[in-house]
């Protein structure tokens, strides 16, 4: 890939972002590539050193706050005429609620991922509860009339305890995973905004 292709590809990946921001970034990379080639590097080599267009674009998108990206998306591309402003004001009950909905969707996405983790921990709690309950009840039975049933219940309790220990590690891993994943989810959402939809 030569310099021009790199810059054009990158520009396409960032087309939905604030224009000034993108221009500044592109001129930064373009200067970098010029300086590298000036030192005797081939254009293709210089481009390869920057990493793939996707990587560079992801880093840039991760850098820009979601709010900035979202408002750029909503902002009109030209000055509004008077009647459009009137219409916007009249229509505010609709579009404001639409924006709120969009944010609600994003938040609910997070919540649903976290609720899976919460459910896992709840299952863990249930097993612990069962283990304690079974062992207590089983002990009472064993000491009392029915020793055989009692032992069976105790063993069931021990099985629960074992499963709980297993699940504990699973829960811990899942929680860590979701925490590690959070920035990537944010990046994914931003990426949806970053590319301009085709008119």
């Amino acid at each position, binding site marked *: 890939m030569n310099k021009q292709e790199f810059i054009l590809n990158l520009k396409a990946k960032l087309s939905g972002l604030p224009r000034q921001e993108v221009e500044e970034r592109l001129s*930064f990379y373009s*200067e*970098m590539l010029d300086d590298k080639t000036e030192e005797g590097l081939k254009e293709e080599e210089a481009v390869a050193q920057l990493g793939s267009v996707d990587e*560079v674009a992801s880093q*840039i998108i991760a850098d820009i706050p979601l709010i900035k990206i979202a408002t750029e998306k909503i902002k009109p591309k030209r000055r509004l005429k008077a009647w459009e402003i009137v219409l916007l004001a009249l229509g505010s009950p609709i579009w404001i609620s639409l924006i709120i909905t969009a944010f609600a969707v994003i938040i609910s996405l997070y919540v649903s991922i976290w609720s899976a983790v919460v459910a896992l921990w709840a299952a863990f709690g249930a097993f612990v509860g069962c283990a304690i309950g079974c062992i207590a009840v089983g002990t009472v039975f064993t000491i009392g009339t029915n020793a055989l049933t009692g032992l069976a219940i105790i063993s069931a309790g021990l099985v629960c305890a074992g499963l709980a220990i297993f699940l504990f590690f699973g829960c811990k891993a899942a929680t860590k995973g979701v925490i590690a994943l959070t920035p990537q989810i944010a990046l994914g959402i931003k990426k949806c905004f970053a590319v301009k939809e085709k008119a």
Partner: protein
Amino acid sequence: MDIQLKRGLLDVCVLTAIKNEDSYGYKIIKDMMPYIEISESTLYTILKRLEAANMLTVRSVEHGGRLRKYYHITKAGLGRIEDFKDEWREVMSIYKFVTKEDAENE
């Protein structure tokens, strides 16, 4: 290395790279290379942040028929480097304390 720590170090390294004379993006990366690795996008973010914090100023200079941005350190930027040195004098004495046993055992 811890991400937060590296971020703070990179800020000071970039400031140091432009301390003695104004420099430009590619040269900053090259000068830092032997000590700490920095990607182009990271450098851009840091330069922006330092500019917003008034630690450096930017000007465009013509170079070989194109524009190149030169970064110039401000008083606040120089102050940041001095703060860093003071902080790390402290850190180094703590480091000595932490590694004292290792040194004695050798």
